[in-house]
């Protein structure tokens, strides 16, 4: 596959914390691998494309999060996501997006059912968790850095594994784990955007989406940036 489709879900709603950059970093890294990419922006009223290779969701405020959930539960959208997962597509969901793809979450003071793609539930905590975060990714086996800014406390069910072990910061709220992962579905609280801070993670997602192993990229600036953030966040 030398052409992939990156689907940025509801960026107008889920774009408050800079996570839209994840799509740009994926497209940029893909170029080094000789993969051409199309970024498809899906608006609130648009149906999800059925042939996406990577679906992205970002962070949002409560009202926007609820609107995005409502749109994803509308018409055939949830089936489209289920089929996408079955054929091996990747989902990366950050913060509010991570909560949306879980089983349950809270927004505007009420509990709602999420999309149920990841076996997690999120509840509000008593204090907002804001600051730099560093984890060791269980999937990649090395350090990831980012920035967290959320009220959520996320509890993993038996069907999901944590995405990272927290070194610095709070992650899911217990300061032990961040995010969740199941196959090609990734959830995390890390902004930054996470793929800009951790370009190797972008490469992993491209590998997972295409089923191909790519040669390592030489991009000194990306490396310098990522390793600097890993060094300064103690």
């Amino acid at each position, binding site marked *: 596959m030398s052409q992939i489709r990156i689907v940025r879900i509801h960026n*107008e*709603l889920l*774009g*408050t*914390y*800079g*996570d*839209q*950059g994840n799509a*740009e*970093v994926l497209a*940029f890294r893909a170029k080094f691998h000789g993969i051409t990419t199309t970024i498809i922006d899906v608006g*609130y*009223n648009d149906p999800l494309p059925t042939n996406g290779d990577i679906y992205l969701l970002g962070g949002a*405020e*409560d*009202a*926007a999060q*609820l*609107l995005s959930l409502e749109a994803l539960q509308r018409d055939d959208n949830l089936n489209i996501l289920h089929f996408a997962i079955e054929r091996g597509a990747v989902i990366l969901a950050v913060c509010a997006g991570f909560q949306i793809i879980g089983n349950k979450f809270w927004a*505007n003071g009420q509990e709602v059912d999420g999309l149920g793609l990841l076996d997690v539930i999120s509840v509000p905590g008593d204090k*907002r968790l*804001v*600051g730099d975060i560093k984890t060791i990714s269980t999937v990649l086996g090395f350090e990831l850095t980012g*920035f967290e*800014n959320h009220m959520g406390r996320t509890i993993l069910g038996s069907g999901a594994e944590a995405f990272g072990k927290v070194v610095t910061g709070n992650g899911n709220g217990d300061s032990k784990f961040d995010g969740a992962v199941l196959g090609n579905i990734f959830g995390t609280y890390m*902004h*930054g*955007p996470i793929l*800009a801070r951790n370009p190797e993670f972008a490469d992993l997602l491209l590998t997972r989406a295409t089923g191909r192993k790519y040669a390592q990229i030489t991009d000194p*600036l*990306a490396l*310098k*940036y990522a390793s*600097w953030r890993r060094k300064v966040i103690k």
Partner: protein
Amino acid sequence: MRLKLSILLAKLAGSLSKNVLRKSGETIPGRVLLALYPKAISELSKSRKIICVSGTNGKTSTTKALVTIISKLGTVTTSPSGSNLDRGVATALMQKSEYAVLEVDELHLSRVITEAKPVAVLLLNLTRDQLHRMHEVKRVADRWAVSAKGAPETLFIGDADDPFVELALASAAQSHRVSFGGRKHLDGAVCPSCGIYLKWNRNDYKCACGLTNLNADALFDSGSAAYRNATLANVTGQLLGGKVIAIDEQSLERSVNREYNGVKANLRLTKNPASWTEALTSVTGNDVVLIVNSREVDGIDTSWLWDISFAVLSGKNIVVCGERGLDIAYRLHVEGIEVEVTNNFESAISKFAKGSHVHVLAAYTAFHELVRA
């Protein structure tokens, strides 16, 4: 403790801080005064007309413009430049005057409205900024709306094209809604009043719940942020009995000209997606320095750099610096724009030949350091 004595002690503390510690001494008096006399803001506001200016971008310069207008009506005190928390407000009020024009931080506005009972509040705009501190744009907007509703004696003036400002105007008993013919808003997808998907028709919004920028009390041509703020200052001045003045738009851009070893630099304050996007339209030359910091007032997270399209900088000579110079270097790299990264401003500006005109877009803390130097 008596108010007069508290003021005396606060002034003494300010002068000590200035003369002995060599600090600016601008916020210390207010801080001391509020510690000694917590009700100082409400006490000192009673004898005069208070006008507050708040918003994400343009507070300092719009406050200055409004001071010029109001000073023709009577004596005016104002906040020390950029000092917009409650202590800056208290410092301003220590001086006797008929009017006080106060720049107020978005999150401190509610307290100041409650205590100072202003005759007028000018709301410029509300966009994403310092989210580590503000958390959410809607959170700030809700506070404004609650304050507006609870201040029936106060006239709220603002830019109705911004749905978050309009929420406050619509909640106020007395409002003057200004429109510049509509304008898209980065966070305008959701109605801040009722939470449904906000219906936009080109640049105008009209929600089923009634929130809209249409049917404003005053309609002006569209224009730059500086022009809008100048207009809003004049509208506010007029409503208070003042005369319209000509306002130099460059002064409202927070832009300053400096020279460094023969290199001419135009320094411009850039601190969030809205102000960067506005500033980028002014970059006409080819030589550019970008400075990004991440101290408290800059915003300690830099994720928002990805909200901005820097495409207009493509093909220019760009040098970046600041504590987070690498963040913007990588953001531009992904957009296909290569830059040179330097350790500090001195080495960045030295990359340009004598006689060149350099656009310097600087983070809040960097801008203030350069202007003060």
